């Protein structure tokens, strides 16, 4: 799957989890840019992303995400090697 497609599917997941229809994701988007993305909803979002793409992140990988781009790249790598 192309990275752009992953980003667009992530946008849908973020809208649902954060109950925020105005979410627009870029590769450099961080939690500070999205209303509703906080320490409590972060874990729920990771669970939804794993379910949707049928991937499993390692703890170290999730803790290393600095922005949405890091997550997109990780999903892309996992789907490529699956």
């Amino acid at each position, binding site marked *: 799957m192309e990275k752009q497609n992953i980003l667009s599917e992530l946008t849908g997941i973020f809208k649902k989890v954060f*109950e925020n229809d105005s979410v627009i994701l870029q590769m450099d988007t961080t939690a500070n840019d999205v209303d509703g993305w*906080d*320490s*409590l*909803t*972060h*874990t*729920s979002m*990771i*669970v939804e992303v794993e379910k949707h793409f049928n991937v499993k992140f390692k*703890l*170290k990988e*999730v*803790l*290393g995400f600095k922005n949405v781009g890091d997550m997109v790249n990780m999903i892309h790598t996992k789907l490529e090697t699956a």
Partner: protein
Amino acid sequence: MKGKLQLWWLLAGSIIFCAFYSLAGLAILFSLIIANYFTGIWIEQSRYKNAILFLSCAINLGALFLFKYYNFFNVEFTTLLKSWNIDNPLPVLHWIIPVGLSYFVLQAIGYNTDIQREMEPAERNFLVFTSYFLYFPKLIQGPVDRPRNILPQLKETKVFDYTRATTGLKLIAWGLIKKLVIADRLSIIVSEVYAHPHDFSGSVLLMAGLFYMVQLYADFSGYMDIALGVSHILGIEMMPNFNRPFSATSITDFWKRWHISLSTWLYEYVYNPVSLQWRNWGNWGMVLAIFITFFLSGMWHGVGWTFISWGLLNGLAMGYELRTVKWRKSFFKKLKPSTAKLLSISITFLFTLLSFTFVRANTVSEGWYVVTHLFDQSKTVSVLSLGLDSANFMLACLGVALLLFLQFYQPKQSFSSNISAQPVILRWAIYSITALILLNFGILGGKGFIYAQF
């Protein structure tokens, strides 16, 4: 070369500052610095990163346990053994806690964990490393600033900057007003009421609860302003610890605004990894992670059941907020936005006030007494018999009102820039009035800072 010399001076200053409190404490901190210096490099180089991280945590937490918690658990253990008619063979230790050990340990664990996570490299320069851990503005009570923020700044050569120096001095002056004029004045009434809360009516208990909450804020944020101001003059920017906490609209929001360096530390190193580890348990995994985080937060703040109760109360509130996000959203949507905001702020404010009661009370049962007797008006005591005369009482109330007002009033420009923009005569008039306020109304009795005891 100049930068290195500056660093030596900074370290010398920090060592003298630390030695002023206790030479033995300095020696213990220095031993821990050496241990952490080597564990950091070892974690980076080794294949067994988890095992060495575990070892480094054991060293740091072991020191914290020995100096801060041992006697508490020993007393509890003695009580338990006594109920079985057994004598406790463990001795009571009369050791002084090294200054800032609680803050030191958090920073050391964070440093080693970042290396284990391969997010940061180990620091090889021992001079820089030691200067970070002993850096005097943050030594006593934080902020729990991260090495990734401070270490690079320590390596830069500093040049004196007049604007930076004056901004720092203004921040220090504001911090001193908060501490000496407001916090220490409020503490007189608070100490009087909490010494024997059973003697007072509900309205006095409520007032003392409010005063304690503001005292704690003025004391801690006052210290932070002084520390940030000193550090600003030295050319090192530390992370701020407060962002108008009493304007929070939920407990979750409150913890993003109060003691931010600790909250973010707990999030990065406790809540986030634990909740992610248990993410397949649904919401309950997160609720459990919140409880563990706040239990540890309570334990870290102090030794005793009052602190544990306070931590668990906050965990309970956060767990409730997590489980009721949708319900609360739909409930507040039915109200006018301004009403919804006012209601959210009021509920959060009241909960915070009640939960802090347990931090100040001598025992959990006394805290419970205060919380359950806020509407009991069976006793009549004049507020002027609580240690302050009418002028000082009015001044205390004025201080509370000012700090609460500043929670909601946000000027476009900072106060410091506003003052700098004024003509020179007005500027110096403000400085002179500030000095007069401090000298005339400051309580210069040398009271310690509350958070330094944590």
